[in-house]
């Protein structure tokens, strides 16, 4: 576990138990000069360096890049699951540590990570339970979220009775439980088959639009990033850093029709070129 004392204000607020008010004008996420290095046997390994990033409230931003580019590390830093070695991270104007204590973000990982001994409903309710939300309010919120992810008939089932895609939907519902205005997702559809994946992408686009939450989405799939995002942040390894940011303004219409539109292909090409660093040469063109 990383240190609890990375920021000064954390301890005071924890003592009073009152969440500090978020600044409504502040960006959902601001990273300035963020770096992370690990001490390995062979000396210092730089996982991430000089990250500058701002995500507006309600904006959908994907982090894409080859393995080792530090995209997951960056997400862990934002979530305050690890502490940065340099730089500063704020979430709605608050230090990341404080944002974690105040539950300003929801998080989902590649594995659904459901507790096997809890029913679907109890899994969704877990973050609410830990934050002392009372039983009736909890039940109401669980019903609402189950409806949102289309699992109303399954709230009493256990995770081992669900398919991988359904489990991931439960994980998304759980990440939304405390009504966060920022969602952090680390390759949530990475372990799913292509059909389920496309279906859940459309679902996530709808859910993000409905809740108005900002999303930071880690992926290694270019089409997935383009389909979902307002902006795609391209990263590169050794040392992990941001090399490019590609705007993919496809508007609010994120449905299957979009997957076949020319502008979608144009954006996919733009992201691919940004990833490879050179314009792609197409056969049959000069």
């Amino acid at each position, binding site marked *: *576990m990383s240190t609890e004392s990375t920021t000064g204000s954390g301890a005071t607020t924890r003592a009073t138990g009152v969440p500090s008010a978020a600044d409504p004008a502040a960006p959902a996420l601001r990273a300035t000069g963020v770096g992370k290095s690990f001490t390995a046997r062979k000396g210092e390994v730089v996982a991430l360096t000089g990250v500058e990033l701002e995500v507006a409230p309600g904006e959908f931003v994907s982090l894409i890049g080859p393995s080792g580019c530090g995209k997951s590390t960056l997400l862990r830093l934002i*979530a*305050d*699951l690890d502490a940065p070695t340099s730089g500063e991270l704020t979430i709605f104007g608050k230090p990341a540590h404080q944002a*974690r*204590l*105040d*539950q300003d*973000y929801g*998080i989902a*990982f590649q*594995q659904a*990570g459901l*507790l*096997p*001994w809890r029913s679907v409903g109890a899994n969704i309710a*877990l*973050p609410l*339970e*830990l*934050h002392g939300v009372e039983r009736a309010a909890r039940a109401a919120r669980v019903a609402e979220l189950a409806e949102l992810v289309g699992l109303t008939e399954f709230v009493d089932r*256990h995770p*081992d009775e669900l398919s991988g895609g359904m489990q991931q939907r439960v994980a998304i519902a759980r990440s939304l439980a405390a009504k966060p205005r920022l969602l952090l997702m680390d390759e949530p559809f990475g372990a799913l088959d292509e059909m389920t994946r496309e279906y859940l992408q459309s679902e996530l686009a709808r859910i993000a639009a409905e809740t108005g939450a900002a999303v930071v989405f880690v992926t290694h799939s270019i089409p997935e990033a383009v389909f979902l995002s307002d902006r795609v942040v391209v990263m590169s390894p050794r040392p992990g850093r941001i090399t490019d940011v590609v705007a993919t303004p496809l508007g609010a219409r994120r449905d299957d029709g979009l997957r076949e539109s020319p502008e979608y292909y144009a954006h996919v090409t733009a992201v691919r070129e940004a990833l490879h660093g050179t314009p792609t040469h197409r056969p049959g063109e000069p």
Partner: protein
Amino acid sequence: MSRRTSAILWGVLGVLAVVLLWEGYKALGPAEGVVIGAVPGEAGSGVLILPRTHDRAMPHVWDMVARLFAPTSGGSTPPLWVSVLGAAGLTLGIAAVGWVIGVVVGGVLGALMQRWRLLEWGLLPWIVVSQTVPLIAFAPIVNSMGLQLGRGGGFEWPQWVSVAVIASYLAFFPVAIGVLRGLAAPDRIHLDLLRSYAAGYGATLWRLRLPAAVPYLLPALRLAAANAVVGAVVAEVSIGMRGGIGRMLLQLAGQASADPAAPWGPTFGAIALGLVAAGSVALLGLGLRRYRRGEATA
């Protein structure tokens, strides 16, 4: 055939096999056993490689059963099975107290060691070493320490407390190890998740670590139950406590040449004791079924 019926059938077959083996050897084996290297005229010389089969050494199974219904020590004393039941009940009660002490102590030690790695390094070797101390040497020391304590404090230290303490000394070990491993069992992703919810140590322990530890805890508790019974029986014998099954076994074994079927009564009692103890823990596992999803039902 359902799983349950076949399980019962196999159990009965197992007992029958033991009975057949016993009676079969008794019928076929030489009455005085087989001794090699005996010097003629010198009693007790040589090595006995096959046991004697005469009625004093190997009573018939039906004699053992019949003996259970005869008076314990002649006259109008109650039948043997009643005495065995009473003695086994007393030992079971003491073993249960030892089990509870062992589970509490082992649980706390395991949790402390899991929380602080430094404590694991410091304590674990001692905990392992503690189990190598021979009980037969250790039991009288515990008893005399208890008596000293009672004398100093002006109260009487009952012998059964010594027995329970010794039983707990054997019982705590598997629990400490099981808790140490079990509490460290949750997946990384679950720990990250709870951390993202700003859950403290207590909340993480209660909602994640303990439920995840159940598959490790149940075998540990079962081992602890078996250990507590063994510890209680041995401790009774070694400190000379009256009324328990250990003492009864010793006493009747002393009269075996005159009444060879008698010691088998308390022997059956001790076996039943172990089964009841292990069965109680199995019941506990039934209650914790939902924490064992995905685990093969055992």
